[in-house]
């Protein structure tokens, strides 16, 4: 690389910093004060682009119209954030962290469909900024004028935020509440107003981050998830709650990305290395390195232990005779179902069984092991890709591929788990998300090996398993066996060690449990079992695609577990059944199934903060105590 191209890539990176910083700063502020990990934050960014597109169209492409449109978009998104806080989140501040997460994800679904309804599925590229349409020549390279404007906007907002946080009462209250909200309330500050105001500010920043991108990036529906993943990374790398940290992290990540693109394809030691393809992964690599070296982020402060999510401390129920009896009857009933001859029902049931196993493996991790994962689909997907690759690339027989594929997922979980168990709470969750994104990126980009964005087809089961009915029985046996195996582990000495490590790491260490190793293996086991589900899924569909590893699928699993209730054993199975069935029903009825699903989730979360099975369990307990 020449000196001039280094400078140019550096400028490129600086220009990318602004948007990323704006989004991350908003996320960080909201998390700091309300302790809510707002999945919908990426949706606010996406809406910022859409609204800016429309607003500029409305105001006209004059200098005033353009910048007025951007400011208007930011304000609109700020108000939207405040409204969502008032309508939804305010009702669930007392609910467990994970339910809040679920609610914000439901908001993601609703917003995505709203955007689809309003703006349609096409990408919308906005106008270039009036007065900044040209490029300036720097060291012989062209730099768009608008990029220079962005380079100025980022630090300006950073300075404005710094002034706000340090020189105004509102800012001082934000910082105080980030440390101890209850004390702030006891001093006479109305938390509700503070939270709403912070949501307004945070959402406004996300909206602004999206809006200023309008000349550079089209408004697209997938941006919500892409951006929230980026924002997580920036916040975690910079340090949760640190605004300067967010800026620094946004800067490092943008510059490294710009350099990766700038370097392009080169040959190192005889290998062709494509740096431009690294861009999707590189930020997650940075995050993984930072988290291992400085788990609280570059400019963050170490936080107290916060493993688990504050709702998981109830002991697991003992498996009684009644439970076995009911479970047995259900299995027999399931085994008889193919006799009905309803092909569609079998397909649905196979899905339900597979997702029940997937959800049970995530439950194993979240509940008894006390580690929340935002990226469990990585292991589901690794199982599916493992099966497909073993079948197609390695030419193994299907049975062997099915048997070995879960080991691929288990190996992946062993690798990523080594990093993950070094962290706890939200940091751990975000790291799992980052790893899932890495796996997704690899599957998405490695056309020659994984089929890239198209995935792979023709992954069918062996001849003797090819009838729906036989495959159903295979799925039934494998999934039920695996779920039973997971439960068996919970009640083994390893399971007790796991729960001891979750509930009281110090005491567990004191009685000789190596908590970290136990968690590491728990992580690997959960990955392995998710891999079984994934491998079955690949053969049941005959094809795979990167969607299997995507964040939405990870969240699906979270929704299943949380719907069913974390404290119960059957919760994830119930949740998976309801979720899969509901999704199927709604998807057949309307194009806007995501919004419907989101609204249903919101209603459920607000009505049953303990999950459905947890709710039913409490009803039972109440009836029993009323009888006695």
């Amino acid at each position, binding site marked *: 690389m020449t000196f001039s191209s280094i400078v140019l890539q550096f400028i490129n990176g600086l220009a990318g910093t602004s948007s990323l910083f704006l989004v991350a700063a908003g996320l960080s502020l909201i998390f700091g004060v309300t302790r809510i990990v707002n999945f919908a934050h990426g949706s606010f960014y996406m809406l910022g682009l859409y609204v800016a597109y429309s607003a500029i169209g409305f105001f006209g492409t004059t200098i005033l119209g353009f910048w007025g449109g951007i400011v208007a978009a930011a304000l609109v998104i700020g108000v939207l954030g405040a409204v969502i806080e008032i309508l939804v989140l305010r009702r669930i501040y007392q609910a467990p962290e994970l339910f809040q997460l679920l609610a914000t994800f439901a908001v993601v679904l609703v917003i995505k469909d709203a955007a689809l309804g309003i703006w349609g599925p096409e990408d919308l590229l906005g106008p270039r900024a009036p007065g900044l349409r040209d490029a300036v020549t720097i060291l012989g390279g062209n730099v768009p004028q608008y990029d220079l404007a962005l380079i100025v906007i980022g630090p300006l907002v950073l300075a404005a935020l710094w002034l706000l946080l340090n020189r105004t*009462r509102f800012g*001082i*209250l934000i*910082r*105080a509440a*980030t*440390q*101890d909200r*209850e*004390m*702030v*309330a*006891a*001093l*006479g*500050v*109305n*938390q509700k107003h503070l939270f709403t105001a912070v949501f307004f500010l945070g959402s406004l920043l996300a909206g602004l981050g999206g809006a200023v991108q309008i000349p550079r990036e089209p408004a697209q529906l997938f941006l919500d998830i892409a951006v929230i993943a980026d924002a997580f990374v920036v916040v975690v790398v910079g340090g949760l709650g640190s605004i300067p940290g967010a800026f620094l992290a946004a800067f490092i990540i943008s510059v490294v990305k710009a350099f990766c693109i700038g370097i392009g394809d080169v040959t190192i030691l005889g290998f062709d290395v494509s740096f431009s393809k690294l861009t999707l992964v590189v930020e997650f690599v940075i995050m993984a390195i930072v988290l291992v070296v400085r788990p609280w982020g570059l400019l963050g402060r170490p936080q107290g232990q916060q493993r688990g999510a504050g709702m998981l401390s109830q002991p697991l129920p003992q498996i009684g005779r009644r439970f076995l009896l009911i479970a047995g009857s259900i299995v027999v009933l399931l085994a008889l179902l193919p006799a009905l001859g309803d092909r569609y029902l079998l397909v649905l049931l196979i899905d339900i069984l597979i997702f029940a196993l997937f959800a049970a493996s995530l439950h194993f991790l979240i509940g008894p092991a006390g580690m929340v994962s935002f990226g469990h689909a990585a292991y589901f997907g690794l199982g599916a890709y493992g099966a497909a690759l073993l079948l197609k690339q390695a030419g193994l027989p299907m049975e062997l591929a099915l048997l070995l594929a879960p080991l691929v997922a288990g190996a992946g979980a062993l690798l990523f788990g080594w990093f993950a168990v070094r962290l706890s709470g939200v940091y751990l969750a975000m790291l799992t998300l980052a790893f899932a994104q890495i796996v997704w990126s690899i599957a998405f980009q490695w056309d020659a090996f994984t089929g890239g964005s198209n995935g792979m087809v023709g992954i069918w089961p062996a001849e003797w398993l090819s009838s729906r009915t036989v495959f159903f029985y295979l799925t039934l046996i494998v999934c039920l066996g695996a779920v039973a195996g997971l439960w068996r582990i919970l009640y083994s000495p390893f399971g007790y060690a796991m729960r001891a490590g979750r509930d009281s790491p110090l005491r567990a260490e004191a009685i000789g449990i190596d908590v970290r190793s136990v968690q590491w293996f728990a992580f690997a086991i959960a990955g392995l079992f998710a891999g079984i589900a994934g491998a079955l899924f690949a053969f049941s569909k005959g094809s795979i695609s990167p969607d299997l590893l995507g964040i939405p699928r990870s969240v699906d699993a979270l929704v299943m577990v949380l719907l069913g209730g974390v404290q119960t054993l059957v919760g994830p199975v119930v949740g998976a059944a309801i979720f899969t069935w509901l999704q199927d029903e709604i998807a057949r009825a309307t194009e806007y199934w995501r919004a419907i699903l989101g609204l249903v989730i919101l209603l459920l979360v607000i009505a049953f903060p303990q999950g459905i099975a947890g709710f039913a369990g409490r009803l039972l307990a109440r009836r029993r105590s009323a009888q006695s």
Partner: protein
Amino acid sequence: MLSLRNLHACYGQAHILADVSLDVGAGEVVVLLGRNGAGKSTTLKSIMGLLPPHSGEIHFDGARIDGKAPHDIARLGLGYVPEDRRIFTDLTVEENLEVGRQAERAKTPLWTPERVFALFPNLAEMRHRSAAQMSGGEQQMLAIARTLMGNPRLLLLDEPSEGLAPVIIAQMARSIGELKSQGLTVLLSEQNLHFASQVADRAYVLEKGRIRYQGAITELANDPDARRAYLSV
């Protein structure tokens, strides 16, 4: 001014306060004594709305306050200083005071940073310092100062002498005397009978969540049986 009637409070299933009734008159300094775990902090948290009472009533200045949100209770003129102080260590001394600041209340003198610094002179020298770099005694003073900035008419102090050196305790006693002479009503919790008898007019003794004794602090100080029965002396 403040009265608790048959108050019961629970943490989840654990029943902590049973039938607590007490009164604090305007201008009084009343102490709530009791061993560790007797329920003193729980009583103060219940008054403040941080732990909504299970049953019973709390009246402040004629208005019923149980069931209200903490910030509403604070705005009625109740100031709360928690036992672990809960200073905002990410903020400077001055910023801590700012968080506590509330609008002026009718018939209550207005506290300003200057007035607060006059009461606790050593805080004045460190007004721009981060609260994280303060000693325990200084943090305790800052916690009280921060609450005073809300112009309370009644101050709830949870074990103000806990963990402090004797010199600082003496200084704390003088400050509380000063506040009393300015007309502030105080309800404090204590385990330190010596300190309590320096500042309080009357005492209630809590044991296992029940009021066991009430009377003038001098009586209690002169009653070795009661002291032995309810306090760890």
